[in-house]
């Protein structure tokens, strides 16, 4: 299993981006079969959806697209539900052994805590990539109000997607990029607008390339 762990603050656009990434993975044929279903009829892409509320919304949005989704609600998989995440992930491995697992974290999660947990306890994991979505429109506000969380989410990302750049002027985008890069200069970085269809080349480099 190749795991794509999506982090980023509430409202940054994780679900919109995951919809595009999932479509990309489904349409991209790997090793002779589509990623939505293997020859055995099992899904080759499974999404684990973690939401802090009692009722999920993002899981319904993803299911409406025909995607295979597992829910972990009413808690955060980087702390209160970390054992449930491990159980869920290992069940997926045993029952389906998909090529791809996308994990959408709550907007309050620290992705590196989750990586530590699944690296230690997860079974059958070939790779883990942490993709953090940063909200360009609210960067100044969020990095001021809760710098610990925002910096903690971005600092150890493998890939940073600066989303909603359509809401800013080019100079503002450049300033936000500088702020993001000060926290993490080594991650792959893409400035995007998930409101529109993102160039598949971005997904190829950011998601599927090793």
């Amino acid at each position, binding site marked *: 299993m190749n795991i794509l762990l999506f982090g980023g*603050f*509430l*409202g940054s656009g994780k679900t919109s981006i995951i919809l595009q990434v999932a479509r990309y993975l489904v349409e991209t044929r790997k090793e002779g079969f589509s990623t939505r279903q293997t020859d055995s009829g099992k899904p080759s892409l499974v999404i684990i959806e973690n*939401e*802090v*509320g*009692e*009722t*999920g*919304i*993002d899981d*319904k*949005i993803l299911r*409406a697209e025909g995607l295979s989704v597992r829910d972990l609600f009413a808690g*955060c998989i*980087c*702390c*209160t539900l970390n054992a449930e995440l491990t159980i869920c992930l290992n069940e997926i491995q045993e029952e389906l052994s998909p090529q791809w697992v996308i994990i959408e974290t709550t*907007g*309050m999660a*620290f992705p590196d*805590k989750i990586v530590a947990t699944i690296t230690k306890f997860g079974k059958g994991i070939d790779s883990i990539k942490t993709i953090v979505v940063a*909200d360009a*429109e*609210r960067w100044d*506000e969020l990095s001021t*109000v*809760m*710098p*610990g*969380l925002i*910096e*903690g989410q971005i*600092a150890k990302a493998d890939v940073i997607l600066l989303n909603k750049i359509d809401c800013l002027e080019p100079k503002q985008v450049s300033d936000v990029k500088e702020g993001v890069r000060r926290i993490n200069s080594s991650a792959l970085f893409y400035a995007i607008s998930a*409101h529109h269809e993102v160039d598949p080349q971005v997904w190829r480099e950011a998601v599927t390339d090793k």
Partner: protein
Amino acid sequence: MSEQQHEHFPMHSHQHSHEFSNEQPDPAIFSETHSLVFLEKVSSEKIQQALTLWVEEIRDWAKGNAYLVGHIKIFVEGQENLWLSSTGGNINIKYSPEWSEWFTDKVSPSVTAIIFGTTKETLGEVAQVRLQACLDYL
């Protein structure tokens, strides 16, 4: 309704031992799913107007009290789907291809509001009252 202004958000530990700040604000969360059945078929336009009004009202209430919006989201599940979301500014509206032509006598909206700076009780009361008022419009 008068609300007290919060200059600082209540903090909690979130159970993290991390090189960054261990403390982060604890948001108030309102999240419910409703199954609505109407006596006669209602247009998707009217459903969209009613639910958009709820998102606007929660957004404006949060703004008026200097609360930080985590996100406000609605997803309407049925033969057709509607997705509304806001982080305190514009409301993003997405829908399935045939949504605009749809009439229905039953619908299941799931609503979530995550707001920093208020309590779960206050948010719950405000969200519930305003949701009921918006649904009464249908």
